């Protein structure tokens, strides 16, 4: 395969290849649509239908496919450049419309395929080929972006966290409507170690908090820390001792408002992983089908003769 040795894309591929067959979706009904980037080579390594399109446009192309064929399971694979730089608007609108796409954004915080320029998720100060004195742009937070775009399922997971990745992929697959998953992905060549503290066994538990619906937000190696609400902010507190649990915030991925999810998405220490939001809302393709059926129900005829001969005033010349 054609990623660099040690690239996290292999880990994602492995998990996707493992998860897909277990979903119960016939292989021929799965389509993977990608843009351009290292990440976007993904379809070539799957035995499903696949479309490696052009830079940034995968969400638009997938939208058309999903509208034309709502019964298919349509997955979008994109990168932080493909999806948030050139393709940001398509991603936004696909999510806002709640098109039933499963969107996997491989975030390595760099343009990999073009050999290492800063991307919209690169940190301020990041030195790259195109920012030799450090990037001066404030990064986009992909999860916050998805929440503001009204995505109905939003999750974040590190590529190497295979169990969680598998779990989230399965949930995304069955979610009705758009599912957005940010996958933290190491690029050993151009941005090595950018997520190390979140994935390294030694630091991971102290640096990340796993979101579990209905459970209090506890983390830390000893599970001794937790998150509590402080007005409209989140505060780290101890999770042990008297009345500790009652102080702790309980995660609710189904909250009608996205406020909690939004707050969590912005946490930097610890970083939240897991499912931020999972709510129900009518999908775009259902809306299309509903109007189509109702137009048909209104008893309007729909054949060539009606189209040409009955749709307007006609007259006959003998």
């Amino acid at each position, binding site marked *: 395969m054609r990623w660099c040795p040690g690239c996290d894309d292999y880990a994602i591929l492995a998990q996707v290849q493992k998860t897909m067959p277990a979903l119960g979706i016939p292989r021929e009904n799965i389509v993977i649509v990608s843009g351009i980037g290292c990440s976007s080579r993904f379809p070539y390594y799957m035995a499903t239908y696949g479309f*490696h*399109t052009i830079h940034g446009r995968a969400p638009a192309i997938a*939208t058309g496919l999903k509208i*034309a064929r709502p019964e298919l399971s349509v997955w979008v694979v994109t990168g932080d450049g493909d999806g948030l730089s050139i393709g940001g608007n398509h991603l936004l609108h696909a999510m806002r419309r709640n098109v039933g796409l499963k969107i996997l954004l491989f975030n390595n915080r760099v343009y990999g395929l073009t050999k290492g320029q800063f991307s919209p998720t690169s940190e301020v100060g990041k030195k790259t080929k195109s920012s030799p004195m450090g990037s001066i742009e404030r990064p986009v937070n992909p999860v916050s972006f998805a929440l503001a775009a009204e995505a109905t399922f939003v999750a974040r997971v590190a590529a190497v966290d295979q169990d969680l990745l598998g779990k989230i992929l399965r949930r995304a697959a069955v979610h009705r409507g758009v599912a957005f998953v940010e996958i933290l992905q190491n690029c050993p060549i151009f941005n090595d170690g950018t997520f190390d503290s979140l994935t390294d066994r030694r630091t991971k538990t102290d640096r990340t908090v796993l979101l579990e619906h209905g459970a209090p937000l506890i983390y830390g190696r000893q599970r001794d820390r937790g998150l509590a609400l402080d007005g409209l902010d989140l505060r780290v507190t101890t999770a042990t001792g008297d009345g500790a649990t009652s102080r702790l915030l309980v995660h609710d991925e189904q909250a009608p408002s996205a406020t909690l999810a939004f707050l969590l998405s912005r946490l930097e220490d610890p970083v939240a992983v897991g499912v931020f939001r999972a709510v129900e809302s009518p999908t775009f393709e259902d809306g299309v089908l509903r109007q189509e059926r109702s137009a048909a129900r209104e008893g309007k*005829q729909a054949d060539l003769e009606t189209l040409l001969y009955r749709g307007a005033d006609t007259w006959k010349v003998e």
Partner: protein
Amino acid sequence: MSAIAARAEAGNTPEIDEVDQVVVRFAGDSGDGIQLAGTQFSTTAVVVGNDIATFPDYPAEIRAPAGSLPGVSGYQIHLSSHDIRTPGDSPNVLVAMNPAALKTNLPALERGGIVIVNSDAFTPLNLQKAGYADNPLSGEALSSYRVIAVPISTLNFKGLERVELPKKQLDRCKNFFALGLVYWMFDRPLEPTLRWIQAKFRNDDPVGEANAQALREGYHYGETIEAPSMRMRVGAATFPPGVYRNITGNGALALGLVAASALSGKPLFYGTYPITPASDILHDLSRRKEYGVRVFQAEDEIAAIGAAIGAAYGGALAVTGTSGPGLALKSEAIGLAVMTELPLVILDVQRAGPSTGMPTKTEQSDLLQAIYGRNGESPVAVLAAATPSDCFDTALEACRLALELMTPVILLSDAYLGNAAEPWKLPELSSLRPITISHPRAGNGFLPYARDPETMARPWAIPGTPQLEHRIGGLEKADGSGQVSYDPHNHEHMVAVRAERIARISQRIAPAFVYGAAAGDVLIVSWGGTKGAVFTAVDQLRKQGLSVAAMHLRHLNPLPGNVGEVLGRFRHVLVAELNRGQLLMLLRARYLVGATGLNKVQGLPFRVSEIVDAVRELLGRGRRHLRKEEKHGAHEDRGTGAGSDSALDARRLRFGPRSALVPGM
């Protein structure tokens, strides 16, 4: 002078003249309901049995201020008792609802023609907005025309006294008053318009009542005019038997797409982003959900074509529609469709460019963009519709080519065709050939880039088909397997294959049709919406005894196989187009033919007389210069100063003087 002007001058004619044809133009503020009056007038004409051709000419994208010159909206109708093809060069009758409308439209009116004006609108303020120092109604300004000045606003109010509506709304009916007057003038029945009002408004809606009443008032006012030789009648034309309806180009395009969907059994997917003058196709298709038409109004043009490509991949009849600036945005994605060999129809309803240009005005300047506007060697088929109703046939053909050959097809229309209307003889259902598509079924050894030996089309294997799972994309493909390939010879081969796929279309299409002399002095070559004017010019020139023919091309890429041979049969080749010589370049390059361009870039269609004059000039019989630009030398001088002379030289150099034909090779 037309028969009408002549009769009007004679001053002594029977009460209602029978005339062969007449050109009427309604003009007024964009708020005056001009387009509606025009449409109603043409519908009635059609009901009465005339042949018609119309030319709506809107103000630009901007909302124009009332009474201003740029705010004038026009609608020209040519009605005739015989077969006609253009909306007419210059109106015989002009209805001008205010001074600005008079000012902008008078120059087009034939000398001796009739002007109906709403004299109430000739207020000092309006006169000033129109740039009239003096009221033209009182001076000598209109002395070479027959003027009917009617206080339309006042009369309209009076007639609607009893209708309970605010004055402002009553005033909005004055277009119906004027229409009534024109109906009287042409001895037309009111019923078709009254029926339309009835269908449009609820019975108790006072607006409907007011409109109907205004129409009647206008008609009756006509009866009271004491002026001779005012009325005329255009008899019914003899149409070939059949069922007819009135259609605009955009309407016909939409119908053609839905028909292609029915004929192919593929659901229609239309991905688009609104843009003048293509938006009406979106509006039309949005109302056809019962036909299974899925319309997607995307966030921009790139998403629109992207979605269409996705739908094509999914097995739909996928179409995306736009105008020039939108086509520019779609360039990169068209390349993806070329590389993935997916069926896709791209509509471009052209408008005057470059950039935002003049968005409501017509032009044919996207031809080279359509053929060459992408990175790499990325050939697509390019077609253009010739008349409003031909948009239907061309849409069908574009869909057929796309689906049967697995290729993107660009269909060019333009602002003029899109909005113009004409009677359309509906095709017999049995005459509509099905579009045959076969999707491969499950099986072993599937090769996504295997090819049909004849059409060179690759198989259209759609997701959902077991065992045909495969990957496509924008990277170069190995022929056959469709795998990514960087092999130099494979690339060269695939570039040739993609070219050949398109080139072979010339074997499938009808040879170019030649209208007029089979060989001789002048061949006029045209494409797109100029056909009507060109063919009419050929008729006139042949009547004048000249040896002239026209070859109108529906297929621009590839060209039909006989083009070179036809070019070789004429002494002069004149390529008439609304651009600076785009088809001209293609013909010269391919056939090494010393053709000359007749080019107009004014945002307006050709007038027949412009073509007639150009041909006469080419044959040394004309009285004016050939190249349009030269006619406006004065204007040009104003801008370019010392530069204009060499400007002309440079242009002459560009395609050379009218030269003898060098036969194609």
